[in-house]
């Protein structure tokens, strides 16, 4: 979506503007939003929900436009809670955790847009159900450091780390067999 003020840059800010009780959606780029700054101030109340609504509608239009000539397919639906992708677009809420998996392809670009380009979790991991995840993350970081050590030709250290990785992988196997 292009900025409705300059029609040049992509619109990154989506406001609902209320004038005399009449609501209008505004889609502006960062630059124009700043120029209008004083006028907008809070009355634009740039809200996360408006941003989400703007994004979902936008993606929906693009997808419809792309799909237009194709033969009608089964509607995309989450098998765990039977919410359809269309319903999700309308209400902006998922029906269950499995919806993330069911609508993965559609959702991931939207998540990136909503979270400033970030697509991967980088925060807390629940300790009880997340034990295996901790191990896997550790293994991943160790594997990266092995690569670095090898390029620096520190082979002895690299061998040590390789042994560490093996023992962690053993722990992980035991965990997975342990029925969790």
């Amino acid at each position: 979506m292009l900025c409705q003020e300059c029609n040049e840059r992509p619109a990154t800010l989506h406001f609902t503007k209320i004038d005399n009780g009449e609501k209008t959606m505004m889609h502006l780029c960062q630059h124009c939003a700043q120029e209008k700054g004083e006028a907008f101030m809070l009355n634009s109340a740039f809200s996360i929900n408006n941003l989400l609504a703007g994004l979902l509608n936008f993606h929906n239009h693009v997808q419809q436009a792309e799909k237009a000539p194709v033969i009608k397919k089964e509607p995309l639906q989450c098998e765990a809670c039977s919410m359809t992708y269309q319903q999700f677009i309308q209400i902006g809420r998922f029906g269950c955790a499995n919806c993330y998996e069911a609508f993965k392809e559609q959702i991931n670009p939207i998540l990136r847009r909503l979270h400033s380009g970030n697509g991967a979790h980088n925060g807390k991991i629940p300790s009880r159900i997340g034990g295996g995840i901790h191990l896997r993350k550790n293994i991943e970081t160790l594997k990266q450091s092995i690569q670095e050590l090898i390029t620096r030709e520190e082979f002895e250290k690299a061998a040590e780390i390789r042994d560490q990785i093996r023992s962690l992988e053993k722990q992980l196997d035991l965990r997975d067999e342990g029925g969790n």
Partner: protein
Amino acid sequence: MSLEKFLNQAVSSWMSAEGPDSDIVLSSRVRLARNVRDYKFPIIFSSEEGQKIIESVYRSVEGQHFSTIGSLELLVMDELQPLQKRVLVEKHLISPNLANNSILGACILSENEEVSIMINEEDHIRIQCLYPGLQIAEALKVANEIDDHIEQHVDYAFDENIGYLTSCPTNVGTGLRASVMMHLPGLVLTHQMGRIVPAINQLGLVVRGIYGEGSEALGNIFQISNQITLGKSETDIVEDLESVVAQLIAEERSAREALAKTSNIELEDKVFRSYGVLSNCRIIESKEAANCLSDLRLGIDMGYIKNISKNILNELMILTQPGFLQQYAGGPLRPDERDARRASLIRERLNLEQ
């Protein structure tokens, strides 16, 4: 009921206690969104599922004693009077959505009202910690403690790649929303908010008024919160917010200094006029009350007015909301009756200071 007794019951510690930088930061809040694995989210779950969620979350914390917050009590929304729910909303302890729209909504509230765990709001679990002054990191610490505890007993919906799974995609990842409530009269009076709001938005943070609708920020009270929940760690989110807040505090302080230098007498006049209105009014609407209270608080902070406690702004912004006024009156009030009640409550409260 006497006003003093009413105040003792009505005022939570986050409203009355003083925290770091509390001349500008009124309160800090942290909220963690969590869901239970294999249960549909509250917008479409069955009442059986909703009931089970309440039971298992309450069982996980029942009888527990957490470091600083005291014991916990379960409040089921369907068992509360509309007025009781409204008061909880006005105290920021539950969301309007939980009070009015939830099915099988409940809240587990700590004795000191610093912690409330909302159940079956938009997500199954929302742990909220509310502290006076600038204490986001402290609030996060307590929220994490409670989260760890619940997780020992409840299987969370969690994905290795995208973190805690929430009903709305704007919360996925950490499920963390951190926010501070700031009193920024200096920046408003010097017309700087129009410049500042877009700059803060650019940093991935959201600014909005808490009181008032749409464009207004009644009482010059603003809420700053993080928008991004995915890809950053909890600590990074909190630190990024803290650094913007620190900058805003510095700018507000220098705006106040500039005002004192360039328009000392005008400012003093504004403060005392508002003080006059508050101490003498017989009818006052919430908007006028909010603006006068903001002036009064600024006057206290800047030393024009002495012998009035600082928390008067925090306290009266909440106590003069419709729900509280009606609770104090002991029954429903028409809007015109509220305005008269509001005026008398403010006058009585100011009298307690003398």
